[in-house]
């Protein structure tokens, strides 16, 4: 293609038009499909022609050709000119010819400027080059790539020889370290990920500059920058060479296109350009993947490869001295037969590799050791791992030991995301999560996300680790999470359903179920994982778009989340997901909104008793209260008995309850010796509520809680809140806060007496709740009005409390419903130790802390399922009886309500 380009006759001065003509011809060839190499070579040849012509013109008359040579440097020296690249020139001269050199440089430079070139130039002697090249690494780099254009060839040869001997072969270590540092600064400026959505094709990570870095390092260390030469001596694999050529060709072609179109040195691949180039190159929009996304996926695949190969190559070049290798290996210690640990690396001796990596679990073990010892895997090992991994069948990673290692890596603590990223680099992650292979380098074409899907997922894990260390609510909740492996796994796959037509949360849900199966997770773990992936946007949608001061909103959210355990995970997951979108996206503003929703929801789900409170402060406080009560009541009640009761009193209650109330409870309890049941009623005019406190002994009367709620329902009272305290010797204090719709101005004494007496007669067994309810049927009490019903949700949660099984019930409110629920709990042979009954709007959210008769948690999965099904069925039956015409709104919460949750 190049031969057809017109060659200009020498001797005629170059004009802008002539230059543009040649450049247009190259552009046309590029547009017809000539390769990146062809184009940069043609552009270099064009510049060469111009400079040689100009040089010849200058020397046509007066000067002798000896003593001055025109040298191309940098990218131009490498013959890699893009359409509007700068041209780096050096006029090298022998000291005697300085005047000539200056004259010829001035003449040539003026013409070049007039032609519109951006020129970098210098006028130097060989001695200058030597001294500057020693101290200034930028000049040193440019000079390494010197190429003779015109003039005194002997002088140029002399320069090359002395420069190699005295400069470029010296202090290679320093030089490479410096270039690497320089490059890292550029990363800081142009993006430290290869997955920027608008990358700078030259300077962003994985871009052309990384290819240059590899070439410079090779030149300095091995005196060649040819990929093939490096491969011949085993420094690059054949696969590396092919990947580097492909990437270079791709980048060159893209960059040429950018320059030709913008008519200037435009190196940023902007969104507009991505769309244009993708269209130009024949990418077609597919239903689930835009043309531009396909194009950029190619881009990222190239940049990832370049980045991997370069960083490996450079660190190899830096630490290859024999002495250093000795130091690195001497103190090595062997672990588990195959693994050698040194000060900063983990390796497997080459002789052992075939044997070691015949099993998938050992590859996993390698990463696990690297994580727990904080050591990086040796470069040469990383280089061959992708092939080792690919050589193994799928089932090699499905044995118990591989799964355990993978879950252990996910659990941490520490370096979880680093280790996962390293596993992704060698294509190991996709052996556990096949979908990870398809989202590799998949971009999300919007201005919001800054990273590709796989990077975003990995970054989310690292954000969780980082946020988890903070001294904040979020940090605390992260640390409280007992299953960090599941949390990290959920983060790792949360967006994995992207890039397809269907809603990515729904696809993600299926993938999560599949991953859970591969990893052999149990039902409970599977449910949690699937929930977190399916609803990973629920909390941000609720916190940022709904009014979390509205109880209805909090309730609906609580109902969907179900348990404190799931809520804690979702909170951290949401924050980490937002933080992984890009720097500066997770603001204090967002943190506050999420935190508020978290706290409010947690109160709904954890109920009155705080699960597992281990605060020393709280314990101290409880101890102080005990002491105060003893001192104030000690003269009136028997010390021994007081002490025993106070010891049995849960710390959480003691610290939260006013001392006066505790004293009142104790004084009433002391009177129980004379009666089996005592009822105390207090009306609070400010709140419009009445507290009925019932003192009795559980031992004598089974199912107290359910019976009291039945009486109150029969009397037409609405239960707002209920608390149960079980104390020493089976003494029970039940406090019911009720509202009395029949007595809006407060219950008169006879009403209070009626309710209290009814409680006593029922508890003493003289009348049944059923009889009372029968009697209470009122004329014309229809329960229509609300057109839709929320589905009933029952959750059995064994994770949030060490001593109790927690039952969460969400249902529509109906007079008497609490009785139905508590009766079911009683019939199931469970004993309620604490409860929080809350009625909000037309919804009840009831939390019961229960144990079996022996006082233990209900660990048997079958029994948990039975509990769930029984309570749900009783509620449905009751609601169906009282109201048959209201349709149930079904949401996609099926997998959460289908069965009980067990651990």
């Amino acid at each position, binding site marked *: 293609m190049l031969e057809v380009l017109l060659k200009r006759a020498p001797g005629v001065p170059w004009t802008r038009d002539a230059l543009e003509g040649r450049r247009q011809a190259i552009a046309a060839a590029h547009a017809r499909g000539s390769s990146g190499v062809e184009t940069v070579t043609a552009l270099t040849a064009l510049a060469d022609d111009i400079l040689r012509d100009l040089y010849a013109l200058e020397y046509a008359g007066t000067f002798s050709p000896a003593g001055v040579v025109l040298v191309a440097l940098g990218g131009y020296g490498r013959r890699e000119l893009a359409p509007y690249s700068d041209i780096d020139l050096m006029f090298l001269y022998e000291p005697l010819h300085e005047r000539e050199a200056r004259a010829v440089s001035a003449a040539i430079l003026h013409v070049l400027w007039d032609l519109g070139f951006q020129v970098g130039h210098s006028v130097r002697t060989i001695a200058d080059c030597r001294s500057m090249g020693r101290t200034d690494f930028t000049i040193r780099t440019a000079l390494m790539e010197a190429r003779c254009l015109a003039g005194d060839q002997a002088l140029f040869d002399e320069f090359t020889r002395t420069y190699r001997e005295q400069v470029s072969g010296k202090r290679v270590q320093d030089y490479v370290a410096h270039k690497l540092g320089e490059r890292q600064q550029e990363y800081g400026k142009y993006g430290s990920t290869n997955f920027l959505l608008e990358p700078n094709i030259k300077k962003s990570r994985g871009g052309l500059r990384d290819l240059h870095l590899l070439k410079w390092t090779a030149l300095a260390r091995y005196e060649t920058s040819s990929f093939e030469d490096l491969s011949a001596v085993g420094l690059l694999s054949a696969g590396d060479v092919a990947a580097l050529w492909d990437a270079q060709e791709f980048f060159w072609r893209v960059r040429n296109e950018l320059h030709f179109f913008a008519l200037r040195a435009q190196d940023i691949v902007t969104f507009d350009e991505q769309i244009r180039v993708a269209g130009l190159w024949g990418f077609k929009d597919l239903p689930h993947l835009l043309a531009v996304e396909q194009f950029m996926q190619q881009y990222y695949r190239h940049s990832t490869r370049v980045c991997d190969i370069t960083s490996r190559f450079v660190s190899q070049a830096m630490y290859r001295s024999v002495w250093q290798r000795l130091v690195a290996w001497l103190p090595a210690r062997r672990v588990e037969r195959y693994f050698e640990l040194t000060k900063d690396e983990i390796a497997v001796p080459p002789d052992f590799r075939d044997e070691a990596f015949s099993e998938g679990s050992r590859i996993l073990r390698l990463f696990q050791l690297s994580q727990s010892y904080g050591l990086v895997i040796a470069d040469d090992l990383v280089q061959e791992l992708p092939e080792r991994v690919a050589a193994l069948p799928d089932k090699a990673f499905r044995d118990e030991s591989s799964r355990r290692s993978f879950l252990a890596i996910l659990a941490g603590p520490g370096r979880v995301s680093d280790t996962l990223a390293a596993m992704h680099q060698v294509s190991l992650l996709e052996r556990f999560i096949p979908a990870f292979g398809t989202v590799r380098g998949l971009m999300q074409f919007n201005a919001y996300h800054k990273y590709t899907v796989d990077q975003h997922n990995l970054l989310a894990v690292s954000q969780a680790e980082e946020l988890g260390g903070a001294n904040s609510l979020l940090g605390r909740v992260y640390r409280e999470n007992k299953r960090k492996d599941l949390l990290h796994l959920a983060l790792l796959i949360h967006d994995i359903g992207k890039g397809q037509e269907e809603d990515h949360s729904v696809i993600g849900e299926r993938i999560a179920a599949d991953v859970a199966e591969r990893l052999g997770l149990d039902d409970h773990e599977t449910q949690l994982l699937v929930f977190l992936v399916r609803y990973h946007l629920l909390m941000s949608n609720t916190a*940022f778009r709904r009014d*979390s001061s509205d109880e209805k909103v909090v309730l609906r959210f609580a109902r969907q989340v179900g348990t404190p355990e799931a809520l804690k995970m979702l909170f951290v997951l949401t924050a980490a997901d937002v933080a992984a979108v890009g720097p500066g996206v997770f603001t204090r503003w967002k943190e506050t909104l999420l935190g508020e929703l978290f706290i409010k929801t947690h109160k709904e789900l954890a109920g009155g008793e*705080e699960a597992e409170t281990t605060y020393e402060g709280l314990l101290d406080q409880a101890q102080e209260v005990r002491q105060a009560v003893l001192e104030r009541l000690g003269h009136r009640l028997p010390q021994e008995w007081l002490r025993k009761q106070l010891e049995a009193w849960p710390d959480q209650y003691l610290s939260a309850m006013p001392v006066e109330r505790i004293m009142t409870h104790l004084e009433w309890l002391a009177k129980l010796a004379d009666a089996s049941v005592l009822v105390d009623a207090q009306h609070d005019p400010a709140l419009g509520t009445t507290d009925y406190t019932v003192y009795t002994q559980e031992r004598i009367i089974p199912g107290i809680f359910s019976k009291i709620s039945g009486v109150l329902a029969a009397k037409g009272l609405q239960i707002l809140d209920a608390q149960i305290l079980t104390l020493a010797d089976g003494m029970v204090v039940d406090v019911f806060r009720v509202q009395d719709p029949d007595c809006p101005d407060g219950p008169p004494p006879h009403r209070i007496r009626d309710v209290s007496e009814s409680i006593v007669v029922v508890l003493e067994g003289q009348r049944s709740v059923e009889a009372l309810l029968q009697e209470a049927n009122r004329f014309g009490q229809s329960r229509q009005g609300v057109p839709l019903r929320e589905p009933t949700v029952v959750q059995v949660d064994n994770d949030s409390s060490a001593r109790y099984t927690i039952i969460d019930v969400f249902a529509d409110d109906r007079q008497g419903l609490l009785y139905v629920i508590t009766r079911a709990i009683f019939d199931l042979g469970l004993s309620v130790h604490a409860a929080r009954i809350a009625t909000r709007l037309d919804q009840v959210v009831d939390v019961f802390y229960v144990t079996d008769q022996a006082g233990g948690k209900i660990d048997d999965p079958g029994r948990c399922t039975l509990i769930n099904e029984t309570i749900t069925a009783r509620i449905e039956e009751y609601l169906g009886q009282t109201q048959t015409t209201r349709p149930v709104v079904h949401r996609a919460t099926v997998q959460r309500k289908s069965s009980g949750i067990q651990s």
Partner: protein
Amino acid sequence: MKKIEAIIKPFKLEEVKDALTELGVYGMTVSEVRGFGRQKGHKEAYRGTEYTIEFVPKTKIEVVVVDKLADKVIETIIRTAKTGSIGDGKIFVSNLDEAVRIRTGETGDRAL
């Protein structure tokens, strides 16, 4: 021209934005802000530890409109951003001297 700044509850943004767009307001600047007014922040307790929310998260909307649209915009913001409970926010209105569209150099109403 009037510049109207409204501090509203975050979840109201979408609703307010839609209503203003319908009114013919074509541009607006939105930012996440934190602050307090008479509400003075509040405290939330989680398992025995109190977390003070000193600065309440709000959303700030800024729009610049021609004079005759100003009242309508204010009225619309009030209607859509109101929940009736504490912390609904505030609207600030000020006169604006000049507006310039950077690309074309157009000024005044034509720049909006």
